[in-house]
């Protein structure tokens, strides 16, 4: 058997007989030359010839060679009246022609339209398949109405054509979302599920179209479909009323069942005591209770595919339907994770992760099985098991789980999983430590077994915990840690990270060791023993330790001086610097030395709550679908981000700071002018940001240009890292949504570029796949979700000239970008403003008042300064700013706007009011008064204040 093109067959045979790659390349090169010659020669080629050569090109492409000519011949075959040529044209165009490199599609658009509108369903299908594969812009422009009509309206077209039209339409919509209004499809889609004798293939495509559209759009416009989908599912699963051809291993239309269950998860559960509720319960019960494990793997795959989807639906509905099936699901999952078949083990574990919240602690019965999966041969299964263990940890189980994870880390865990394993051990041991000795034991074991994977943030955290938080550290803990590390460091070979921690703890709490009859000299020797074989990093830590010890125990000073003196000539500049500095320090007298080397104070409570490790595990980009995911993992993520935000807020409005600010305000001689307009009592009074806690700081907004970028509405900007990378980016934001597109250029080619956005408080980023190439491009969508925003940082990782590189820069997206001006009469504005100011107990509004220094030269009149402020408020901060009493006699600028945010857990957009007043003072030109009132979060006021201070200051 072979195709009926002899030339093609010969070519394929030739290729088959090539014994190595070089021969094959040679043969392909020869053929390409020949075809190129034929295509470029003046003599016209017969249709058959063209077809044959195009198939050869296609074959060469499939072999893995780039085909950079002949596209025109491919596309023009579509115009042929001979079917076999037209067919070849369609297949080859969809595979070989890219709209990026060839501008051919306009020239064939009209024949494609003819085919779409013809009555020949084969031609219609071919056209839809081709357009659907790439959805080139020109064809989408020309044909989208035809395709919509074919997919959505029941006309002459057959189900065979309509199912392909559905797929094609979805592809077009995904690529050019702004061209389509899915709300207009709602009726059409809903009607698709009404047909009395549906073609199940068509139903499958229609359900995919529904799922795909819901993904990109608000699903509620299709809510109508729920009862119809349930009815269809009921018909297939319970009544078995479907054509026998669709039975697959005796299961009716499994693919469609899976799709319907998936689609249902986008909508609200059917209300109790409706037909739909009853039918769906019946379906789920049957699927979950009646599915068996058989000997045929294929049969199992088919049935379990449906089963997992059904379990997922019960989880997504959060028990609103099928809650009574909870135990059955749990039992099944328990079986699945213990069977031989690896696919089921994997999916069982994954589904359990989602199930944690519904199931509560009943998952604990399966701990032993999950432990076994942690040592499965298959890495994907091991990773799932680790995730699951992390999620089900509770005060009851944590010790057992941590012990198991540790022993896994100590023997058996491989490189691919250790990173994650170590992070999870570190978090769990801290979170569930009811006794801190246990914590120390765990982390020491962890470093001993997996030290290379203990990142800086982890070991910094360990030191923080030992030093302690709030007022006084836990001395028992410190003593225990010091003793433990002392004995650990007595061993000849110790992991570098342990040396770093040991150097810190032993020198910091040396007193406690000396009290246990350990000689200071012994402490010094134990540390010094590791000095010669250590890396630069731990040598730095050790030098610190030597100085600290020498300070407390004068008998050690000479030895420390000697080491520092040698270090002062070290080739590593950091060590050299430390050596020289410590050397001269040790030469000073005791008094000075004791002032410099003091005991480490405990960390603030904030540091305790703001655990960078938890942050790391939860710093993830949530896409819109995941936001709806009601599973525990997601909830934990949201909760963590809230905790982090609250902890940060606490730092910024410490009571002492507030008291200081209020007494400063009260003492201001200019206060009288604003009697009753400045909030001096009550809740939610914010303190203006001080330069130190400026979260605009890192990496840094250092110059005027960068501030300007923050203030313009549309940004086109270039970040230049001299020599190797130029980043151009552009952002557009309207309402609560925005998009940023980047292009990267380098002096030499940039490869494998990836980008990550961090510090995204208050915003959600969805980063689309990077378009690699000579000038890599990437698009990201951003959504505001919380008033507490920080300036996000973009980190770009890439390869250039074989080197891995990294570059960081700020994205100029900040509170003001999501604000829209609001027009309001002056009397209404003052009424609101005063109400907010004087209502002492209203928790909803936040107030910030301050006097800021006027930095304009003294010869500039106040009215000009206020005009500049007005410009800032209206152009930069997107408020509606107006003069008072008039532009000629300017005393005050008042401005009003609203911040648009959409919290992930809510379905509607919130508009938070912002009101700002900047006015001059009667008595002096040295200061300006600034007052801000806002809803939502005090951070909004603080962020606005920050921008005003940056610009006017």
């Amino acid at each position, binding site marked *: *058997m*072979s*195709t009926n093109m002899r030339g093609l067959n010969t070519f*394929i045979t030739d290729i088959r007989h090539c014994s190595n790659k070089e021969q094959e390349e040679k043969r392909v090169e020869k053929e390409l030359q020949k075809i190129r010659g034929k295509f470029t020669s003046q003599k016209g080629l017969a249709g058959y010839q063209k077809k044959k050569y195009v198939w050869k090109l*296609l*074959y060469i492409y*499939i*072999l*893995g060679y780039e085909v950079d000519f002949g596209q025109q011949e491919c596309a023009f075959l579509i115009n042929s009246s*001979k*079917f076999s040529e037209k*067919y*070849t044209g369609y*297949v080859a165009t969809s*595979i070989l022609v*890219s*709209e990026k490199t060839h501008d051919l599609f306009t020239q064939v658009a009209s024949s494609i339209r003819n085919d779409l509108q013809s009555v020949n369903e*084969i031609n219609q299908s071919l056209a*839809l*398949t081709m357009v*659907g*594969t790439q*959805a080139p812009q020109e064809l989408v422009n020309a044909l989208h109405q035809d395709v919509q009509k074919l997919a959505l309206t029941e006309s002459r077209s057959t189900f*065979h054509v309509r*199912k*392909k039209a*559905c*797929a094609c339409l979805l*592809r077009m919509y*995904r690529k050019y979302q702004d061209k389509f209004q899915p709300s207009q499809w709602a009726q059409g889609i809903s009607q698709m599920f009404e047909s009395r004798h549906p073609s199940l*293939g068509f139903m*499958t*495509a229609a359900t*995919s179209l529904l799922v*795909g559209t819901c993904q990109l759009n608000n699903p509620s416009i299709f809510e109508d479909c729920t009862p119809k989908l349930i009815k269809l599912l009921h018909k297939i699963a319970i009544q078995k009323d479907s054509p026998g*051809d*669709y039975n*697959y291993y005796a299961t009716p239309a499994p*693919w469609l069942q*899976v799709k319907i269950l*998936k689609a249902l998860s986008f909508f609200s559960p059917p209300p109790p005591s409706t037909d739909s509720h009853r039918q769906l319960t019946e379906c789920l019960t049957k699927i979950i209770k009646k599915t068996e494990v058989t000997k045929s793997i294929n049969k199992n*795959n088919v049935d*379990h*595919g449906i089963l*997992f*989807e059904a379990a997922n639906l019960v989880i997504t509905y959060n028990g609103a339907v099928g809650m009574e099936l909870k135990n059955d699901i749990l039992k099944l999952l328990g079986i699945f994770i213990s069977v031989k078949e*690896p*696919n089921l*083990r*994997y*999916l069982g574990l994954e589904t359990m992760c989602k199930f944690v919240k519904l199931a509560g602690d009943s998952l604990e019965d399966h701990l032993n099985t999950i432990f076994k999966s942690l040592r499965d*041969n*298959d*890495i*994907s299964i091991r*990773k799932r098991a680790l995730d699951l263990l992390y999620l089900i940890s509770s005060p009851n189980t944590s010790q057992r789980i941590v012990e198991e994870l540790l022993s896994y880390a100590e023997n058996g865990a491989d490189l691919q999983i250790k990173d994650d394993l170590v992070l999870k051990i570190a978090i769990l041991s801290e979170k569930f430590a009811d006794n801190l000795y246990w914590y120390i034991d765990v982390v020491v074991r962890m470093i001993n077994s997996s030290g290379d994977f203990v990142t800086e943030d982890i070991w910094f955290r360990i030191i923080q915990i030992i030093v302690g938080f709030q007022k006084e550290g836990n001395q028992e803990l410190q003593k225990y840690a010091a003793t433990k590390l002392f004995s650990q460091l007595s061993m000849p070979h110790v992991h570098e990270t342990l040396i770093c921690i040991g150097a810190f703890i032993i020198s910091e709490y040396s007193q406690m060791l000396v009290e246990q009859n350990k000689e200071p000299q012994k402490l010094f020797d134990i540390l010094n023993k590791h000095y010669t074989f250590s890396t630069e990093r731990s040598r730095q830590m050790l030098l610190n330790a030597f100085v600290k010890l020498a300070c407390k125990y004068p008998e050690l000073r000479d030895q420390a001086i000697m080491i520092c003196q040698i270090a002062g000539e070290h080739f590593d500049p950091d060590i050299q610097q430390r050596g020289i500095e410590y050397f001269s320090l040790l030469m000073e007298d005791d008094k000075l030395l004791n002032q410099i080397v003091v005991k480490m104070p405990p960390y603030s409570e904030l540091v305790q709550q703001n655990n960078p490790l938890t942050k790391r595990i939860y710093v993830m980009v949530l*896409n819109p*679908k995941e936001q709806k995911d009601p599973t525990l993992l997601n909830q934990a993520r949201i909760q963590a981000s809230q905790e982090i935000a609250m902890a940060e807020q606490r730092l910024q409005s410490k009571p002492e700071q507030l008291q200081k600010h209020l007494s400063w305000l009260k003492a201001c001689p200019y206060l009288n002018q604003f009697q009753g307009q400045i909030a001096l009592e009550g809740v939610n009074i914010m303190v203006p940001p001080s330069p130190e806690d400026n979260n605009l700081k890192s990496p840094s907004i250092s110059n005027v240009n960068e501030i300007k970028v923050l203030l313009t509405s549309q940004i086109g900007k270039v970040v230049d890292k001299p020599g190797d990378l130029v980043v151009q980016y552009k952002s557009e934001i309207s309402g609560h949504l925005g998009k940023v597109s980047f292009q990267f250029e380098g002096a030499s080619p940039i490869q494998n570029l990836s980008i990550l956005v961090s510090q995204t408080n208050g915003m959600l980023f969805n980063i689309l796949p990077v378009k*690699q*190439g000579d000038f890599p491009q990437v698009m990201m969508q951003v959504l505001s979700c919380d008033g507490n925003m920080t300036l996000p940082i973009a980190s770009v990782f890439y390869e250039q000239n074989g080197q891995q590189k990294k570059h960081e820069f700020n994205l100029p997206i900040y509170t003001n970008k999501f604000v829209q001006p609001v027009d309001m009469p002056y009397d209404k504005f003052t009424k609101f403003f005063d109400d907010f100011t004087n209502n002492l107990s209203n928790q909803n509004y936040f107030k910030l008042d301050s006097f800021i220094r006027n930095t304009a030269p003294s010869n500039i009149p106040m009215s000009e300064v206020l005009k500049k402020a007005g410009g800032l408020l209206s152009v930069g901060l997107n408020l509606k700013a107006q003069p008072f009493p008039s532009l000629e006699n300017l005393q005050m600028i008042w401005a009003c706007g609203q911040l648009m945010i959409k919290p992930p857990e809510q379905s509607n957009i919130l508009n938070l009011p912002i009101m700002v007043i900047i006015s001059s003072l009667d008595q002096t030109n040295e200061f300006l008064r600034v007052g801000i009132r806002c809803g939502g979060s005090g951070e909004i006021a603080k962020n606005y204040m920050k921008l005003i201070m940056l610009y006017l200051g």
Partner: protein
Amino acid sequence: MIKVFLIVNSSGKIRIRRFYDEVEFARQQQIEQKLVQLTSKLSPNSCNFFKDLDGIYDKKCKIVMRFFGTLYFIAVIDEDESELGVLDLIQNIVDLMDKIFENACELDVLYHPDKMNALIDEIIVAGIVVETNIMDIQEALKQQETQIKNK
């Protein structure tokens, strides 16, 4: 959505190559190479699917592989697709090939790029599975062939 569908033989030669999203040629090659490397890890005792944690295609995607005779069937799918569903689909495609070629083997795939591509196009359109009924697909293919012969 199905992003990529490949059929590769056991020595890593590609027999069917379909990308349903725009991917530049160089990146296509990169993706294929990495996917082919992955096939070596597939054993009867390992899972047939995994998350694309290394971002071979996209970190949000999943990869499904199945081995038949001398051929690997590889699909990269997004989060909307069911892993077991795609395994069925592959089985379905194999069943269909058996019907069309009578005990299909690699040579059939090799010498019939036209038929194979037509077959795939009947099942997957624009990355969406539009038909799983073997009878229907056979019928559609037959009609197409008749039309080719007639004109």
